[in-house]
C-alpha cells in the first residue's frame, strides 16, 4: 500500500502532521514516512517521537524557491512510494501544496481543519464560500496532497523512530534571496489568546485604540481587529487580523466592538467559547453569533467597562 509522507518546514507543524498521519494510518494501515529538508534538528525531533525520517541534505537548494522544494518532495514521494502527502497549511506549506500536487498530478485540499476516515476515504473539512460554509471533501484516487491547518491536530508523541538519508537532485533556481527580515512584531499570537478584545470599522480613530488596549489588558487578553482596521487604516499590524485571510482564533472569551460580522471575519472567531458583541446596529449580523449582545456605541461602552473593571 502507498505510504503517507509528511513534510513541514516548521517543527511544531511537522509534529501535528505526524498526529494526522497516524489517525489516517490507524484506519488504512498505511506506513508513515517523514521528510526533512536541510534540517537535521527536525529529523531528530521527529525520530524521537517515533517517526521514520528520511533526511534530505541539499546545500544547493534555495528553500525560498518553493517550486524547487516541491520538486524535492515529489522525488521523495516517488522514491519512497508515497500516495498521500500531508503538508502544513501555513503560507509556506500552502504554496508547496499546489506545487507538489501538480508535480505528482495529485488532487489537493488545503486549509483542512478536521479529518475523518470512512471506509479508507480521507474525508476533510475546510471552509468554503468565503467561510460561509464548511465543506466535507475527499480526493478520489491514490495521489492526494492534503494541507492541514495549524493546530487542527495535537503534536505527536511516542518513541522508536529512525533516521535514513535520501538522495535527490536539485535543478538550478531562478530565485535569489536578497534579504530575510524577521517581523518586528511584539510577538503576540492572537490564536493562542484566552481572551480577545477586537475592534472593527466602528472604531473612530487610531487614538481610540488606547481604550481598547486598556480593556484587553485589564481582562488579561490581547487586542485584535477585523481586516480593514489593519489593511486599510493600518492602525494595527496584520498579525492582529481575525478572519479568513487572518488568524483563526479559539479564545474562551471574545469581546467584539464595532464589528458588523461579515463572514470573512466571523470564520476566524466562530470557535470562541463565549462571544460578546457591542454594536450600534441592533440588526448587525454579528449578533446572530453572539452570546451577549449590547446595542450601544463602543466609544461609550469601553470607557465604562474600563471603569468597572479597572
Amino acid at each position: 500500500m502507498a505510504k503517507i509522507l509528511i513534510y513541514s518546514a516548521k517543527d511544531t507543524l511537522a509534529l501535528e502532521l505526524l498526529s494526522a498521519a497516524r489517525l489516517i494510518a490507524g484506519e488504512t494501515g498505511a506506513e508513515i514516512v517523514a521528510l526533512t529538508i536541510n534540517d537535521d534538528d527536525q529529523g531528530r525531533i521527529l525520530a524521537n517521537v517515533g517517526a521514520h525520517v528520511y533526511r534530505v541534505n541539499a546545500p544547493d537548494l534555495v528553500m525560498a524557491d518553493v517550486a524547487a522544494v516541491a520538486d524535492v518532495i515529489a522525488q521523495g514521494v516517488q522514491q519512497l512510494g508515497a500516495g498521500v502527502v500531508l503538508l502544513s497549511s501555513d503560507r509556506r506549506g500552502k504554496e508547496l501544496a499546489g506545487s507538489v500536487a501538480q508535480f505528482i498530478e495529485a488532487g489537493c485540499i488545503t486549509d483542512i481543519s478536521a479529518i475523518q476516515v470512512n471506509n479508507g476515504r480521507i474525508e476533510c473539512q475546510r471552509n468554503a464560500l468565503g467561510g460561509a460554509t464548511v465543506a466535507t471533501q475527499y480526493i478520489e484516487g491514490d495521489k492526494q496532497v492534503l494541507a492541514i491547518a495549524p493546530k487542527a491536530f495535537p503534536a505527536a508523541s511516542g518513541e522508536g523512530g529512525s533516521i535514513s538519508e535520501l538522495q535527490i537532485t536539485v535543478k538550478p533556481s531562478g530565485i535569489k534571496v536578497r534579504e530575510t527580515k524577521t517581523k518586528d512584531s511584539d510577538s503576540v499570537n492572537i490564536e493562542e489568546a484566552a481572551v480577545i478584545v477586537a475592534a472593527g470599522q466602528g472604531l473612530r480613530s487610531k487614538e481610540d485604540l488606547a481604550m481598547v488596549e486598556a480593556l484587553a489588558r485589564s481582562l488579561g487578553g490581547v487586542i485584535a481587529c477585523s481586516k480593514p482596521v489593519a489593511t486599510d487604516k493600518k492602525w494595527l499590524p496584520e498579525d492582529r487580523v481575525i478572519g479568513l485571510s487572518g488568524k483563526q482564533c479559539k479564545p474562551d472569551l471574545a469581546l467584539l466592538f464595532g464589528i458588523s460580522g461579515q463572514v470573512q471575519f466571523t470564520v476566524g472567531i466562530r470557535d470562541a467559547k463565549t462571544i460578546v458583541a457591542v454594536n450600534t446596529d441592533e440588526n448587525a449580523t454579528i449578533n446572530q453569533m453572539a452570546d451577549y449582545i449590547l446595542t450601544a456605541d463602543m466609544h461609550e461602552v469601553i470607557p465604562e467597562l474600563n471603569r468597572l473593571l479597572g
Partner: protein
Amino acid sequence: MNIVVAMKQIPDLQQIRISNRRPVLQDVPLTFGGIDKSALEAAVVLKESLGEVKVWVLSAGSEELEDTVKEALAAGGDEAYLVIDQSLAGADSSIIAQVLAAGIKQLNDVDLILFGEGSGDNYSGQVGARVARLLELPLVSYARDIKIDGDTAQVVRVLEDCEEVLEVKLPAVITVLSDIGEPRIPSVTQILKAGKKPKQTAELDDLGISAGQSNPVITLSNLAPESNRKRIVVKNPVELVEKLKSENLIGG
C-alpha cells in the same frame, strides 16, 4: 511587456444567504475575487510606472464571464482572454490550472503572470502554484510588493514570521496579498469604455483540454456551521459585566 492577471469569477460573497444551513446562490451576482482585484491593481500600477505594458485579464468560467470581465477591463485591464465552458464554473483547481496554463500559451511573450494568493470563495490557493509547475516557471506566492527591473522582478514575500526580499527571473508566476494594493474604483468613462476593449474567447476544444481528470476532489456536503449561541441582550455595560462574572469569564 505583457502581464497576465488570472482572475476567478465567483458569486458576490456579501450577497449569499443561508437557508436551512444551505447557501442560496440563486440571483447572486457574479464578480471577481477580492484578492484577484488586488492582483489586477498591482499589474496596472506596474504599467503606470513602466510604460510599455499590456495587461491581460485571463479567466475561465461560464458564459456570464463575458459580462463579469467588463469589471476588470474598466479597472485597468487592456484585453481579456476568456475560456468559456459551463463545466468550468466551480471546476476543480487542477482543471482550472490546466486551462489557464493552456490559455497563457496562446498569448505571446508573457513576462509576468499574477494571481491573488487565494480565490474569494474557496481560498484554496493552489492554482497559481499549479500553473507555475505546468509552465515550468519560477513561483513566488504571498507577494506584498513587486518591482520590475529589466528581466528580473524584485518581490517582497510575506510569511507569518518573516519577510523575504527575492529576485526572480522573468517570466514568473507571482501570487499577491490583498495588501499589495487597494483595487481602484473605475470612473464612469472607464466603465463605458470597458465594453469596447478587445476580448478573445476560447473553448476547451480550442485549447486541447480533455474532460478527464485524475484524483478529483469530491464534495460530500457544504453546509453553514451550526450556531447555538445564547443571544442574550444586555442593556448596559454594568449588566454585561455581571453576566460575564456570573459565568466566571472575567475575574473579580
